[in-house]
């Protein structure tokens, strides 16, 4: 996208007012998608986004500008705007010298999606549609989406960093509506990996469609969800969203630095049940939140956040790490070149415990079993968080019984972490997610074994 000479010239413009730090983030993203709905392939879409964001830091002030024009003059204009925005330095000049471009990893994609004919992508949609509809006459609507994206990024900064990455992600999802006497219900299934079209060696779209259809059909007989505090067992893979909301966001150093986190100042303290070890790991090849380098050029890393229930570290981006005189943890991410980076999660998971998942349910006299979670939301300053249950059942006398309708569960992060009293040995990664912190969407993964929280508030309508 740009060579060392152009990077150096642009950085020199960015540093002209004597800033402390300047960075060019260039991105070239190509994406394609296809959507089927109502039995028709409604649209096949191709997109191209290409540009650079230039960040200049002077003291505590960050100036930022972006441009879709990657020519020398386009980059200089953006660098000039960013420098003007950060105008606080002493006006001295600094030389910047980036040299050879680093590419820390080879592209791990076996079948580049751009080499796959469009009709093969469309065929996945029609196959999913047919499979879902064959699940029963009560399936009254099906939609399916295929999407792939290739994102080439390059980071050059005034510390001499000059590095790049090539990130390919492929995603497939299918949603069904089932209609019965009780009205309509929905079921969804999705799969996504930081990988190419080989995603479909791992996932059979027809099988996914049948599961989504079954989910909708099951809920036709669902009872209203109960209301009030009770034990909640979350199935394998599903609990990741819980940790993403209950503590993940609260461990992001930008929120911690502003005292907007209930976990601020608690390093070294016991914050969770002793069986809980929480890890954020951007190096997990193939997983949805994986990358080679983050959007500040730092290699992805495996970071242990909670070990044996004790809070060991936060997640860091460059800006927060620099203030604390430490290294970034490789968690600086941004939605696109049009955005400033901030601290973000990657793949966040809880390691296996040693309980048999069947025993966890059998040991629960009454409560709720959540087989599939929807999204969630947290207020990091208070720790209160919600997450949705899209497939859930009652637990009665140690057995999973009637399906219940959708709703949110609500809890408080620091409380819920200490209320985990059982962790299964059936670890699984959950569905691909998009985290929307501060309006910027980035792909994140999560995973957990089956786990039980002794008390969470289930937000239903039944007594």
């Amino acid at each position: 996208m740009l060579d060392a000479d152009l990077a150096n010239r642009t950085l020199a413009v960015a540093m002209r007012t004597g800033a402390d730090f300047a960075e060019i983030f260039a991105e070239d993203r190509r994406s394609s998608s296809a959507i089927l709905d109502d039995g028709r392939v409604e649209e096949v879409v191709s997109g191209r986004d290409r540009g650079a964001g230039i960040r200049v830091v002077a003291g505590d002030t960050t100036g930022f500008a972006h441009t879709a024009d990657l020519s020398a003059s386009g980059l200089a204009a953006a660098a000039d705007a960013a420098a003007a925005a950060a105008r606080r330095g002493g006006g001295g000049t600094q030389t910047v010298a980036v040299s050879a471009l680093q590419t820390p990893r080879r592209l791990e994609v076996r079948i580049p999606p751009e080499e796959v004919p469009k009709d093969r992508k469309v065929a996945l949609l029609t196959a999913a549609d047919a499979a879902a509809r064959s699940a029963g006459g009560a399936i009254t609507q099906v939609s399916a989406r295929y999407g792939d994206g290739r994102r080439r990024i390059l980071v050059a900064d005034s510390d001499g960093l000059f590095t790049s990455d090539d990130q390919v992600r492929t995603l497939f999802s299918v949603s069904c509506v089932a209609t019965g006497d009780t009205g309509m219900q929905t079921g969804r299934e999705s799969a996504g990996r930081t990988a190419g079209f080989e995603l479909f060696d791992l996932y059979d779209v027809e099988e996914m469609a049948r599961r989504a259809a079954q989910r909708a059909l099951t809920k036709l007989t669902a009872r209203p969800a109960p209301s009030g505090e009770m034990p909640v067992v979350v199935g394998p893979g599903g609990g990741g969203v819980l940790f993403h909301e209950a503590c993940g966001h609260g461990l992001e150093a930008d929120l911690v630095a502003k005292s907007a986190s209930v976990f601020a100042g608690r390093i070294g303290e016991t914050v969770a049940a002793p069986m809980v070890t929480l890890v954020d790991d951007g190096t997990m090849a193939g997983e949805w939140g994986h990358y080679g380098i983050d959007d500040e050029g730092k290699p992805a890393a495996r970071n242990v956040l909670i070990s044996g229930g004790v809070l060991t570290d936060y997640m860091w981006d460059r800006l927060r790490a620099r203030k604390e005189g430490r290294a970034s943890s490789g968690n600086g991410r941004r939605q696109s070149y049009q955005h400033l980076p901030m601290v973000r999660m990657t793949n966040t998971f809880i390691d296996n415990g040693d309980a048999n998942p069947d025993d966890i349910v059998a040991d629960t006299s009454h409560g709720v079993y959540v087989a599939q979670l929807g999204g969630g939301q947290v207020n990091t300053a208070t720790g209160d968080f919600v997450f949705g249950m899209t497939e859930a059942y009652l637990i009665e006398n140690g057995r999973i019984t009637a399906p219940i309708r959708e709703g949110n569960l609500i809890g408080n992060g620091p409380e819920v972490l200490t209320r985990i009293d059982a962790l299964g040995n059936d670890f699984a990664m959950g569905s691909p997610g998009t985290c929307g912190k501060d309006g910027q969407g980035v792909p994140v993964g999560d995973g957990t074994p089956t786990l039980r929280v002794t008390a969470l508030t289930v937000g239903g309508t039944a007594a």
Partner: protein
Amino acid sequence: MSKSLLEIAERVVGWSGTGFDVEAFVARERETEVRAYQGEVESLTAATSVGIGVRVVRDGRQGFAYAAALDEETLRETFDEALDNSRFGSVDEFAGVAEPDGVAAASLDLYRSELVDFPTDDKVGLALELERVTLAADPRVTGVESAEYADSVYEGAVATSRGVAASSRETGCYLATYSLASDGDETQTGFGFSVGRHPGELSAETAGTDAADRATRLLGASKAPTRRLTVVLDPYVTARLLGIVGATLSGDAVLKGRSLFADRMNDAVGAPSITLVDDATDPDAFTASAIDAEGLATRRVPLISDGVLQAFLYDTYTARRAGVSSTGSAVRGGFKGTPGVGAHALRLAPGTRSQAEIVADIGDGLLVQGVTGLHSGVNAVSGDFSVGAEGLRIRDGETAEPIREVTIASTIQRLLMDVTEVGSDLEWLPMSAAGVTLAIADVTMSGT
């Protein structure tokens, strides 16, 4: 400048050939964002972005492509890609681009040169002032998580090979702040904002005071026992609820069997106090627009009158399929997306009493000042509704202790039927619905 965007759109549309139609949507947006933190500028972003989305419909098959640049080579590439993509869509006799329907666009002046000419230094000054007044609003405000000024100067144009050629431009700006309040061990947060078409309409004082009030009144909040009660929704919460209701009234959801209300035309779907209109021609709405995302004139659409369902929202495609006319309800998420159906500016007809007067008549209730998890706990297809809530308990006609970490749940169908009163305090908010106080009976609050 608008003229040049329209020229670009029309030039691309001119590449249409026999047997296929083209729509080009071109947008340019200049944005500034200033964030203040601890008396300093934390970040200042200034940027212009442009892009085009091209839709081709050939033999009933639709293809789409977009690009974030407007140079000649990119335009050609995008057009070619959209044309190629059209080979893979299914044949749909109703697919097509918009054609002029004779409805004249409202004359709306949504562009303010005061914003365009407003110096960056003054934008910085507003952000710094916002942080200052938020901190000063109450001694219990211990910090400001974010204090931000943002503005946008937007121009858009859309043209089709069937003769649509429309453009628009608008300005908008806001101040938004999140306060942190503490009384020792416990921290609560509150947001406040102020919106306008130019900075002269903004009030840092209002935003800062609201943010401080919302946070401080939750100090000492606790969970409450589970029970059924009447909820009184703050205007901001009502606006978010209306957004969900609007989605259930989209012609797309109706035609594809995803609307709760598909078979309910002319039925009572809400309490008699519910009269809901979607009207993008109202210049007071911050989401006002004279044209929709396909270039047709927007119009006033009465959706529910005195509780009775009167209309659904349609764009060109869904209208053709339903055998009706477009209601000018095409929306799109920028140049990267194809048009879909959506509400532009929903508004409930206001009642006659203030929030305080409404609360005074409620013996057992919850004044809801904030909700969370609308995306995770509300299903617009099944109607299941369950969201996290915080606010103040209402006892014997007065607001009482603060409540947090509870959910409120019902179904969308029941919520509309159970409305007991609409407030008089209608206010336009920076979203596609106006806020107004809403009292709803018989909602389950889940807590301990």
